[in-house]
């Protein structure tokens, strides 16, 4: 009884085979049904993510949020969907029509691709790809393409600037992300997400806290959410890449971003928070789905917390933060993890995990010391009196004023 998904799949398999279909065809039909069900669940969750997001932002800003339609405003997202569907569909003059219309589809579809590798429980997962972690990076690359297509095809300079910023941000943050993703791969000795979860008797966040933070930060940057939402910075480039989109086409970008945030929560919990692991999840795999979604929504809440707490960073700060801080730190963590993995004994697992944790704490302490000394120098530099603007000497009426100290 603990595993209804497998039971339903077996029942369907028996039923279809009983009708005399070939085994290959039965497998194909089951796969198609699985894909349709998974995609539908993801998209239905997505509708209510709009409500959840608005409730979160309201709470962080000391408001109540949607509360008029239905209990707790739960019917609000459905009204929003109807509104988006019946809005006028505008294609800007000079837009590249085909590319313009494909871009929002790509923005949402690439997120759904990620759900193929999420391990929901010990027995329920799309596929245990042996290159799962790399697959996540590859799908991220395709989603970048969707944003570039939207920015270019809109025939709008703000949209184009948004697309440029996207490239600068996503291509840069991919570097520390890929390096940091290798740390759980080293710990689990596999790139498949299911295998990584299977290895986490002790959650990897204990053995690799710095890598977890790096993956989290770089994933928020890939997502393009605050504080990394330079792609759609309202105060600078109006709305960035989706400035010209109306109605449901804009809705697809918005829904894609929300679902991507949730999916990143899922990937993070699979990599570092033990995925479906929790009390009773091994005997009753259905409980694993519950634990997985709990962790996924918790990480989504953390992402929302970050979004509504931090101000947007400048573009030079964004690049400096990536190349001068995240990338070197990720390289150090990767090398230390790889060396310790050979040195530490694997047998009592807690010794191995605690050894890794100690190494991570040392790295964190050294990093903080370096940052502190840098900050001290920077404060001194800022505190020094800068050159004072003086009026030109030729003007006799202001010569008197310029000789007096003006500090």
């Amino acid at each position, binding site marked *: 009884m603990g595993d209804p998904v497998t039971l339903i799949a077996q029942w369907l398999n028996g039923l279809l085979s009983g009708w005399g279909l070939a085994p*290959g065809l039965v497998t194909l039909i089951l796969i198609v049904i699985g894909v349709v069900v998974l995609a539908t669940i993801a998209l239905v969750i997505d509708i209510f993510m709009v409500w959840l997001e608005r409730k979160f932002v309201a709470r962080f800003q000391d408001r109540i949020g949607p509360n008029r339609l239905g209990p707790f405003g739960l019917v609000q997202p459905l009204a929003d969907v109807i509104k988006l569907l019946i809005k006028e569909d505008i294609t800007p003059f000079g837009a*590249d029509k085909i*590319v313009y219309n494909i871009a929002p589809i790509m923005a949402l579809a690439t997120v759904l691709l990620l759900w193929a590798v999420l391990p929901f429980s010990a027995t329920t997962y799309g596929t245990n*790809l*042996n*290159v799962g972690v*790399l*697959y996540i*990076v*590859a799908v*991220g*690359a*395709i989603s*970048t*393409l969707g944003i*570039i*297509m939207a920015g*270019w095809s809109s025939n709008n300079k703000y949209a*184009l600037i948004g*697309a*440029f910023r996207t*490239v600068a941000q996503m*291509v840069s943050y*991919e570097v520390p992300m890929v390096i940091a993703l290798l740390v759980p791969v080293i710990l689990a000795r596999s*790139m498949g997400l299911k295998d990584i979860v299977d290895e986490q008797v002790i959650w990897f966040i204990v053995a690799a806290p710095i890598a977890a933070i790096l993956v989290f930060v770089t994933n928020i940057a890939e997502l393009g959410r605050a504080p990394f939402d330079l792609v759609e910075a309202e105060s600078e480039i109006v709305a960035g890449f989706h400035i010209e989109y109306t109605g449901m086409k804009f809705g697809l970008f918005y829904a894609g971003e929300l679902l991507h945030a949730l999916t990143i929560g899922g990937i993070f919990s699979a990599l570092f928070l033990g995925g479906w692991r929790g009390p009773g999840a091994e005997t009753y795999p259905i409980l694993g789905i519950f634990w997985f979604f709990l962790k996924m929504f918790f990480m989504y809440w953390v992402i929302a917390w970050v979004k509504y707490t931090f101000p947007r960073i400048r573009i030079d700060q964004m690049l400096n933060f990536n190349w001068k801080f995240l990338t070197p730190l990720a390289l150090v963590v990767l090398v230390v993890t790889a060396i310790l993995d050979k040195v530490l004994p694997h047998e009592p697992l807690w010794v191995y995990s605690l050894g890794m944790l100690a190494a991570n704490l040392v790295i964190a302490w050294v990093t903080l010391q370096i940052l502190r000394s840098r900050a001290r120098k920077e404060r001194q530099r800022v505190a020094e009196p800068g050159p004072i603007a003086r009026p030109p000497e030729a003007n006799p009426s202001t010569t008197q004023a310029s000789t007096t100290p003006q500090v």
Partner: protein
Amino acid sequence: MSAMQIVFILIAAATLGAAAMVVIARNMVHSALWLVATLFGVAVFYAILNAGFLAVAQVVIYIGAIAILMIFAIMLTRKVTGDMGPGLNPNWMWAALISAVMFGGIAWMLSSWQGFSSPLAALGSRDDSLQQLGMALVSPDYYVIPFEVASVLLLAALIGAIMVAWERK
């Protein structure tokens, strides 16, 4: 004809069509997007051949890095994002002739190779290939020296790029 062959023919047609569109399309950004489609088709071929790692690496490197940088370069170059003039110049006859001769030659050579007609050997366990690839890249008996030489080459390119971009004070 098996289902796999139908899938192969469909994808091959799509990939070749996209590759032709790279050359035919008059708008350079469209060409770049068709190139992305072509590269994705090649990734699908890798996936069909059970080379999952190569398929994903193809997407990460060629679509995620090279194609996006190409689109970026096109967008940063003035006045090339609009439609251009005719895509052919007077030498197109010569190009077509040389391409036909090359294709004919390669096809003739391959037809005499026995691997062209014999069916593929069945693969063993799927998960082994990635581990074998990793071991081969760092094993002294196989490819560790080419692997390291390639890393040094990339490092040299990286340092060269920094030196070119470096503003001396």
